[in-house]
C-alpha cells in the first residue's frame, strides 16, 4: 500500500500531464474549443426540452433544469467510462516503451472528463438562475453527488479497462449497455410515471439514478433520499474495490495482449 502511495506521489506530474492532454486534444482543431463543453449540453437540453416537453406534455418552467441535472451526470458517466475502457489500448505505444504504472492511463481518462464535466456545470447554474430557482442549504448535497459520480465512474472505469484489454467486444457491448442505462436513469421523464407501473425497482437499484436524484434534490432544494445515498455510496465503493483488485491482478498481462 505504501508503495502505491509513493508511486502516486512520484507520478502526479505525469497524471496531470495526461489529464491536460485529454482536455487539450478533445477540443483541438474545433473553432469554439472548450466552449463546446458548455454549448453542447445547452443545445442538448433545448432539444430534449422541446421533444419531451411536447410529447409528455410537461410544461413546468423548471423542466429544463430537471433534464440538465440528469443529462450532465449521465453524459459524464458515459464519456468517462468509455474513455477508461479504451485507455490501455489507446496508450499501448507508450506502455510498450516506458514503464509507468498503468492505472495512471485509466485514472487520467476519468479525470479529464471529470474536469470537463465540472466546467459544464456552469450551464446548470446559469439555466437554474435564469429560470428562477433559488439556491438553498440543500445545495451542499450537490457536493456529495459530485463525489459519488466520480467514485462510481472510476470504479466502473477500472473494471471496464481490464475487460477492454482482453476483449475488444467490450467497446460495443458497453455502448449498448449505456443506452440501456440511459433509459433507466429517468433523465427526461418523471420517475413517478414508473412508480405505478411496478418497474420502480429498476430506478432504485440503478446507482446512477440514485446519484442523479441526489443532485436534483440539491438543485431543487429538498432533503435527499438517504436510502439512495447509502446505496450509491456502497455500490461505488464496491466497484472501486473490484475494479482496482482486478486491474492490479491482471495488469502485468496487459502488455501481452495489446
Amino acid at each position, binding site marked *: 500500500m505504501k508503495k502505491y502511495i509513493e508511486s502516486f506521489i*512520484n*507520478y502526479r*506530474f*505525469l497524471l*496531470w*500531464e*495526461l489529464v491536460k*492532454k485529454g482536455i*487539450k*486534444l478533445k477540443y*483541438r482543431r474545433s473553432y469554439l474549443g472548450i466552449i463546446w463543453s458548455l454549448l453542447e449540453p445547452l443545445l442538448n437540453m433545448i432539444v430534449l426540452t422541446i421533444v419531451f416537453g411536447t410529447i409528455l406534455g410537461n410544461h413546468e418552467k423548471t423542466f429544463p433544469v430537471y433534464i440538465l441535472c440528469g443529462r450532465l451526470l449521465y453524459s459524464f458517466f458515459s464519456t468517462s467510462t468509455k474513455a477508461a475502457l479504451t485507455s490501455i489500448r489507446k496508450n499501448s*505505444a*507508450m*506502455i*510498450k*516503451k*516506458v*514503464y*509507468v504504472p498503468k492505472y495512471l492511463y485509466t485514472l487520467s481518462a476519468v479525470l479529464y472528463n471529470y474536469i470537463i464535466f465540472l466546467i459544464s456545470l456552469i450551464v446548470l447554474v446559469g439555466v437554474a438562475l435564469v429560470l428562477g430557482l433559488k439556491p438553498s442549504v440543500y445545495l451542499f448535497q450537490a457536493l456529495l453527488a459530485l463525489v459519488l459520480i466520480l467514485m462510481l465512474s472510476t470504479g466502473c472505469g477500472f473494471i471496464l479497462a481490464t475487460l477492454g484489454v*482482453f*476483449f*475488444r*467486444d*467490450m467497446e460495443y*457491448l458497453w455502448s449498448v449497455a449505456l443506452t440501456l442505462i440511459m433509459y433507466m436513469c429517468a433523465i427526461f421523464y418523471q420517475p413517478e410515471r414508473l412508480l405505478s407501473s411496478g418497474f420502480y425497482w429498476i430506478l432504485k437499484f440503478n446507482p446512477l439514478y440514485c446519484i442523479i436524484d441526489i443532485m436534483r434534490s440539491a438543485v431543487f432544494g429538498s432533503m435527499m433520499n438517504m436510502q439512495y445515498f447509502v446505496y450509491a455510496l456502497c455500490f461505488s465503493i464496491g466497484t472501486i474495490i473490484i475494479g482496482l483488485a482486478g486491474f492490479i491482478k491482471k495488469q*502485468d498481462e496487459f*502488455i*501481452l*495482449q495489446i
Partner: protein
Amino acid sequence: MAKKAIVLSHIGMKFNLSKEKVDSLKEYLIKFVRKEIRYNEFWALKDINLTIYEGERVGILGLNGAGKSTLLKVIAGVFKPTEGTVEKHGKIAPLLELGAGFDKQYTGSENIYLYGAMLGYKKKFIDEKYNEIVEFSELGEFIDVPVKNYSSGMRSRLGFSIATVVAPKILILDEVLSVGDAKFRRKSERKVMDMFDSGVTVLFVSHSLEQVKRICNKAMILDHGKLVAYGDIDEVAPQYEKMIEGREDELPRRAKKNRKKKKTGREN
C-alpha cells in the same frame, strides 16, 4: 570492488502464443466451453543469470529473435518476467525505439513535457532543460508543429534529446545510435560517449559488431533465449563471429527442416 548495477537471477519470460488469437468474447466463450483454448508456450528468455557492475558497458549480441529486445524490456521494467527477479540500482534511461511513445497530435514542445513526465522527470527539471532539449534536437521552429508532421528522423532526434538530457546511472540503448542523418549520428554518439566518462552503466543492442566493439567493454551472446556467453568483449566477439559463420553454413539445412516441422510463429 565495484558496486552492482543490475542483478538478474533466473530470469524467464514466457509468451503465450495462442494458435488463433482469441480476442473476442464470443470466440472465447465458445472455445472455453469446447475446451479449445490451447496456448503455444514460447520462452523468449530462459534462466538468465547475470550480474552487471557499475560502469560496465555491455553489448548484447544475438541473431534476430534471440531475445535481446525482450531482455532489455525486462530490465527497463516494461515486461514483468514470468520467473526470476531483476534488481536495479540507480535511475534507468531507456532508449527503446525512440519517439514511438509520442502523441501524434501533440506538438513537439508539448511532447517534451509529456514524454519527460513519462520518464519520471519533474516539471521544474523540464522547464530548466527545455532549451537544451530543443537545441540538441535541432528542430528549430518545428518544435511547435504537431509531431504527426515530423519525419521519422526528426521524431527520433527529439526522442533521443529528451531521453538523454538526464544523467542516468543505467543507460539502455536499443539500436538507437543509428538515428537521424550522419551528422546527428555522430553528435548522439559523442553525447553517449560523454556519459560513459561519468561512469554510466550501459546495455547496448546493435547488429553491428563494429559498433559494439567500439562502445562496449563487455558482451553477452543470447541464443534462443539462453545466455550462451558472457565476458570481456575481446573474448566474446570472436566467439560470436564464429557462431554467425557456423549458422550461415547450416542455414540451407535448417530451412528444410523447418518446413517439415511447420514451425509456429515467434515473438515478432
